[in-house]
């Protein structure tokens, strides 16, 4: 491997490099500037913008970095990865902004350097997760994300629920990644390679011991399933989402999940694919019945998420369950095993990212002021804070998936994919689920607008910048709900996975 080749590969990982540099810079600045931490977020934002710039460049790419002798690389630079990295950067930008505003984070001012560094560690890990094509890299990037998030979940240390969340997260995450690693080791034993492309060509050409293979596949899925919080690997989600600082919850629910889904799609598509037929359906190696698996999983996940959410009084926790349910909807897109399904996932995810960030932002703003995330404390908020109320309403309606919000477009594309695949029953289940989902979303709206405040009104002002950010998040939801061509175009351009 010559140096030129290495340098060429480095060109392909410019976004990762940008993030890595920013990370180093953050550490340095934190060291140098001492107690003046004000610059940190701006450095972070600058780093993210640089990464975003490089990511946009990646939409045209289609190549492998760090190619080995057998011509199979470790990192893929393709539009698909670019899209999910874009989502991560998008989410990170907002999360950084949220962090500036969050009272929770402000409280531990002296550790801000640590905070942003860890966030960048997570971002870096996610970037690699999204673009990795080698099991080794996958595992390590996954752990990178996990470790950073363990610490971030317990960032405020003094808060009781923070620490508890961190402990649960670390144990749960450790076990999940341990199981996944065991799966990887078995897969390695069967195929003799850790490179997904190599494994793919191997399982297509030679006979593979069935049961062992299934075992390894499913064990590996445990790690991914835990990241995307698919049932039955979701148990950490509500506790950690509730316990973690709200900025981190938002980050986990969007960016971490994005990385997880990118990994899932890439893993399934690269490893198991035989061919893509003209209608866009994936013909998989029939070692594992992934279709049934995903159908099964998505039904459980969305049903469980929705039904459990019915009972939540803590809005953060409710949103945690709702994010589980949304993972279920996204898995529907997987179950179709087609390009359509993938487009649907991409569209859905883009919408979900905006919406969820917005929802958490409102929750944060309110929690900053009233110090509660309890739904019952939101009574009458829509009157005293119409702007916040209406924004939250828009986000929740979009999460429910009603027109004319973008959430509807996401659901629409999912159902289009399902109906096209003739999976009507699944579509009906999903639709009924979305009716169930309405219960708990509408309950929040009810408290916002229909109930009268229990004790006094909420006297506080939404600052201009916060208002602007809210508009930035809410406006696209309405606009994309009415004119969604750009969204679909983006999805279409993003579905290109290297090699297929």
């Amino acid at each position: 491997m010559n140096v030129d080749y290495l340098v060429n590969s480095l060109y392909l990982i410019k976004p990762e490099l940008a993030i890595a540099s920013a990370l180093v810079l953050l550490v340095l600045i934190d060291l140098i500037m001492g107690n003046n931490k004000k610059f940190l977020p701006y450095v972070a934002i600058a780093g993210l913008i640089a990464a975003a710039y490089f990511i946009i460049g990646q939409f045209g790419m289609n190549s492998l970095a760090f190619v080995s002798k057998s011509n199979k690389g470790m990192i893929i630079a393709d539009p698909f990865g670019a899209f999910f990295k874009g989502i991560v950067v998008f989410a990170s930008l907002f999360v950084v902004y949220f962090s500036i505003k969050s009272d929770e984070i402000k409280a531990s001012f002296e550790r801000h350097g640590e905070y942003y560094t860890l966030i960048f560690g997570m971002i870096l890990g996610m970037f690699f997760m999204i673009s990795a094509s080698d099991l080794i890299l996958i595992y390590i990037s996954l752990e990178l994300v996990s470790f950073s998030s363990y610490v971030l979940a317990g960032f405020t240390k003094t808060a009781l629920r923070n620490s508890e969340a961190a402990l649960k997260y670390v144990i749960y995450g450790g076990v999940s990644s341990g199981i996944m690693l065991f799966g990887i080791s078995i897969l390695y034993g069967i195929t003799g390679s850790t490179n997904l492309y190599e494994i793919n060509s191997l399982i297509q050409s030679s006979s593979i011991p069935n049961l062992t293979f299934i075992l390894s596949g499913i064990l590996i899925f445990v790690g991914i399933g835990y990241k995307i919080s698919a049932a039955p690997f979701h148990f950490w989600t509500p506790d950690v989402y509730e316990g973690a600082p709200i900025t981190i919850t938002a980050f986990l629910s969007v960016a971490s999940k994005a990385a997880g889904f990118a990994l899932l799609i890439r893993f399934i598509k690269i490893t198991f694919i035989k061919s893509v037929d003209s209608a866009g359906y994936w013909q998989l190696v029939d070692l594992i019945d992934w279709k049934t698996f995903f159908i099964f999983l998505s039904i459980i996940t969305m049903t469980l998420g929705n039904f459990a959410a019915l009972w939540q009084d803590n809005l953060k926790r409710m949103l945690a369950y709702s994010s589980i349910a949304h993972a279920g909807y996204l898995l529907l897109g997987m179950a179709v095993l087609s390009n359509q399904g993938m487009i649907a996932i991409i569209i859905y995810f883009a919408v979900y990212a905006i919406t969820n960030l917005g929802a958490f932002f409102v929750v944060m703003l309110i929690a900053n002021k009233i110090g509660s995330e309890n739904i019952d404390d939101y009574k009458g908020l829509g009157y005293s804070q119409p702007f916040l109320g209406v924004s939250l309403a828009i986000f929740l309606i979009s999460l429910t998936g009603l027109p004319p919000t973008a959430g509807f477009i996401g659901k629409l594309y999912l159902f289009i994919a399902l109906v096209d695949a003739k999976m009507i029953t699944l579509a009906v289940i999903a639709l009924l689920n979305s009716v169930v989902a309405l219960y708990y979303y509408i309950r929040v709206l009810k408290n916002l607008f229909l109930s009268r405040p229990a004790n006094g009104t909420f006297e506080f002002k939404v600052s201009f910048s916060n208002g602007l950010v809210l508009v930035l998040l809410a406006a696209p939801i309405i606009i994309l709900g009415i004119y969604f061509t750009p969204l679909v175009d983006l999805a279409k351009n993003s579905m290109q996975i290297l090699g297929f």
Partner: protein
Amino acid sequence: MGNFPILSFITFLPIAGMIIILLLPKAQTLAMKSITLIITGIQVILAGFLLYHYNYGMGGINNPATFQYIEKFRWIEITGFSWIGKIKIDYFLGIDGLSIPMVLLTAIISFIATLASWKIDKAVKGYFALYLLLVTGMMGVFVALDFFLFYVFWELMLLPMYFLIGIWGGPRREYAAIKFFLYTLLGSVFILLVVIGLYFSTMETLVDGSKVFTFNMLSMMDTHNFVANGILSPMNPHNLRLIAYIALFIGFAIKIPMFPFHTWLPDAHVEAPTAISVILAGVLLKMGTYGILRVCYPVFPDITLKLVWWIGAFGMINIIYGALCAMAQKDFKKLIAYSSVSHMGFVMLGMASLNTIGISGAVLQMFNHGTITAMLFIIVGVIYDRAHTREIDAFGGLATQMPIYTGFVTLAFFAAIGLPGLSGFISESFVFLGGFAFETIRVITVISTLGLLLGAGYMLWTLQRIYLGTVPEKWKLLKDLDFREYAMLVPLSVIIIFLGVYPSFMLNLMNSSVNSMVKFMMDSRALYSSITGF
């Protein structure tokens, strides 16, 4: 004014009004009310304009060339390599004889309901903003010809309605609002599924000869556009048309509301403020029957022909069941709500007749019920504003106390029981004549005539209990109508009498379309049997 996009204008004008209202300071309540009034007033004028230039000879239904005021341009178009690349959604508006009565009705009722909202004093800004949004949604449903667009409008009015009931309603408003919301959402998810199914079963040929899947309702009505193996294509031997039809029908039936999906209606009405009840009964219920006529019938003529007995039978159940339930009510508003259930049964019965007279009767009944029930709810509102109770037994002798009001009440009640000379008569008669002419539902029709008796029964009984007799001491201070109430009741009365004396005004309007519909249904019988044959 040839190219003036009048339908877009009439549909989206309220949105403009909504934005203006949102920009106004909170205290300017009078300005908000006036703006709403002006906007809805302009809508009435525009609807009048539509009517004035309407070409009576054009049939519509399934032929895009015979729709009027068409506005069609590409809304969403995505080109690409696989199927999903070629998605296209049109912004496609147009009206025919089925929709123009509904557009008129929506405009008129919105205007009158604005007046009925005049006394709203709680969160006025939000109220009128939501109200105008609702009006857009309703108007949109009646002018959209693209199924996707139709669905978007359909859902669009859901949330404003939820809040309008939930915030400005009566004591159990939250319960009623959520019930309304859940029921209708449940209905609309079924509709959505069928929309997608139809999307995958129909392909439209573009100008350049290429074929794309389409949401265009009119293309879905043409059997040539079905793809061979679409799940809802009649030529596919394993098609799911029956199931899809039932799902779609239930989706619409919840709005009608058809027994046994009607239970949201009494609650919603009882809790909703007067203006919203007026809108709800006056316009929203019509969406269900309109949807069935606009979509279920021409897109699934084969299944419609199969299930028409059931439609008629449910119509009959609605008529009789609604009337009997109304009879037992103690709450005036609930009684009127159940009477709506009963009256909408006539619409279903008329639709089931599948002939010109019956369907004309059904459409006319939709319009008439809209005006009559609006009036009835205003009447309830008038008394509730004054007495703050709707308990029927708490009243008596109001005819002495409020003679002019009672005059209007009498007119509205008589219209509701189908008294000749008032609009309800001719539509109900047409429904019966049409139903009787169709052998399949003849017996049902005859049984349904019982509804005439029961309707008269509960209406007159109510009239007696509230208005006749002697005035209890505590109501001796009630005032007769004020100017605003005149302004609401007089136009409706005029419409009711005018259409009673000269029903041709409406019937001519819809004649061509209804004929096209009937012809289309009749032709389909042979057409579809030949298609499913191979």
